[in-house]
């Protein structure tokens, strides 16, 4: 698995960290947290948007990572491994909220608070509109769409992260692009904003 979306960590250091994690060393767990917490937060934020409960989800990523540390192979990219877990957590979260919306009488925290971003009014509104549109997509399609467009991932990388074939990623992305374009077309402001960006 390859990834270019993490700050450069020397290969030797990463190998040592993997060994430490597999040996359940506390220093390695601390180092994993310190070095990779921003990365996990960024991957989740791309998929789910700026949210008040983002740190809870980051926490869930690391709980799961430490729970199944034995699946981390020697020499494996930590970023890829954690990224796949972040995708899993994000998917679960999206599905959970969809289920809770369906079971409306159980809908406590069905709608996590969207955090206000210190950006221009235009960007704040665009962020809100884009993630509102993404909320309407199917979870798997939303994830592929977010990783491709918002996180600038290569299709091969996405296939690794979502653990499916390249062909499946392409199909999901095509469906997501169409669905997002339809949703954006219904929001005149968003459609206009997106169109303005063409140089």
């Amino acid at each position: 698995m390859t990834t270019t979306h993490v700050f450069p960590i020397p290969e030797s250091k990463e190998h040592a960290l993997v060994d430490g994690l597999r040996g359940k060393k506390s220093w390695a767990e601390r180092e994993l947290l310190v070095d990779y917490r921003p990365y996990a937060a960024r991957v989740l934020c791309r998929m789910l948007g700026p949210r008040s409960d983002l740190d809870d989800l980051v926490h869930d990523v690391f709980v799961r990572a430490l729970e199944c540390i034995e699946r981390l192979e020697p020499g494996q990219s930590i970023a890829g491994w954690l990224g796949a877990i972040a995708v899993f957590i994000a998917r679960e979260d999206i599905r959970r909220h969809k289920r809770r919306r369906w079971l409306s009488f159980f809908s406590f925290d069905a709608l996590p608070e969207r955090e206000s971003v210190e950006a221009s009014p235009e960007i704040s509104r665009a962020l809100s509109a884009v993630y509102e549109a993404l909320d309407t997509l199917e979870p798997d399609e939303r994830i592929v769409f977010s990783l491709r467009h918002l996180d600038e991932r290569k299709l091969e990388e996405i296939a690794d992260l979502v653990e499916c074939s390249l062909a499946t990623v392409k199909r999901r992305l095509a469906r997501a692009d169409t669905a997002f374009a339809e949703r954006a077309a219904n929001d005149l402001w968003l459609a206009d904003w997106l169109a303005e960006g063409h140089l």
Partner: protein
Amino acid sequence: MNTERWAELRAASDSWLTRREVPPAEQELRALRGDVQRAGRRRAMTLMAGVASMAAGVAIVIAIRSATDKPHAITFALNGGLGKTGEVWGNTNRETTVTFSDGSEVKASSAAEARVVALSERGAEIRLEQGELHARVIHRDETRWAVHAGHFTIRVTGTSFTAGWDPKTERVRIAMDEGRVVVFGPCLADTGEALVGGESREWKCGAPAAPTSTSTGPVPVLPTSTPTSTVPVPVPVLPTPTSNPTPRPSASPALGHNAPDGRILSGSEPTPPTSNPTVPAPVPVPEPPPVPAPPEPTWRDLAKTRRYQDAWTAAKSTNASAQASSVELYELAEVARLAGDRAGAVQLYRSIRDRFSGSAEAARAAFQLGRLSGSSETYGWMQTYLREQPTGAFASETLGRLIELSMARGDRPTATTYAKQYLAQYPTGAHAEYARSVVGP
């Protein structure tokens, strides 16, 4: 898909990620280890209980849902929890966002005070006590949403608008983004007054306020007979032979008074002589002390509620650009652009370049000037941005654009240079394939 726009969103998200508060690593690690241990124990128990509870759970859910035929009311989230009707929100130092389970969203400005007064399966009703809120209501079949502001009711079927209510002056103001609303009030026709996207209007029952600068619709038609609304009318009561002969003073004498024929006149219109000489002359009543007007919203307040036209008008009237910092000036330029004043925006971006040379905002202004300028100038501005922010938020888009522009000019060597730079910096970027095609094998 639009790569430049995604870059802007990425930059904003990254900025938020870096500014938010993160718990110390040690504290997080302790919590993490505890949760991992608990999760291990829980997993074993869950496995045993899961099989048994699954069958029972499914049966219960099916039973409950089949027993409750009627649809459930929507819910709303407030401050991270489930909101309650009647709970007053807003009037804090920051904007309050209320999200509804049907996808609708209401944002109350920092000075606003509001509460949800009713929830149904089709929508919600909100009472705006004071200040401004921006509502974005998702349209569905038979959507029933309403915002009550003083004696006015704004009925919504799926739209985005800003409503403001000043209880002191009893003025309601509505600025439409999109969609359509119908406004009901004691001085409006029984069928209400419709507003559509782009319109902006203000009313005070007793006298219609002058249309605002962004208004495109007609001035509200005033009823020619006494309003039949059941809502109390906050206008002076005219003396009639059957009514109390002592007239009440107008709450706002300068704004309006009623004519004998039932019309409501503006403050500047002279009162026609009464046609009923039997009516006693009004007894002079001391005027109440003037109530200080609430502070006018600043251009930034208006921009936050997406009233870009009003924000831009306010900024120009206060000469906001004169003392603005680089960040404020950039925001102001964005407001001008969103208000549709391209020339004004260009002037401000150029002003940022002149006044704050070397700042991050100056570099971003160069990028925006590249977007807004003609093709001949675009090239130069893009080069400027890249020189000043070689790894900035817009660098990948700028490089991509420079490759395209160089190729369009027939300047392949320059295009190749930019393409190589692009591939070195963004080997998986959106323009990577194009850059490789320019560089060649």
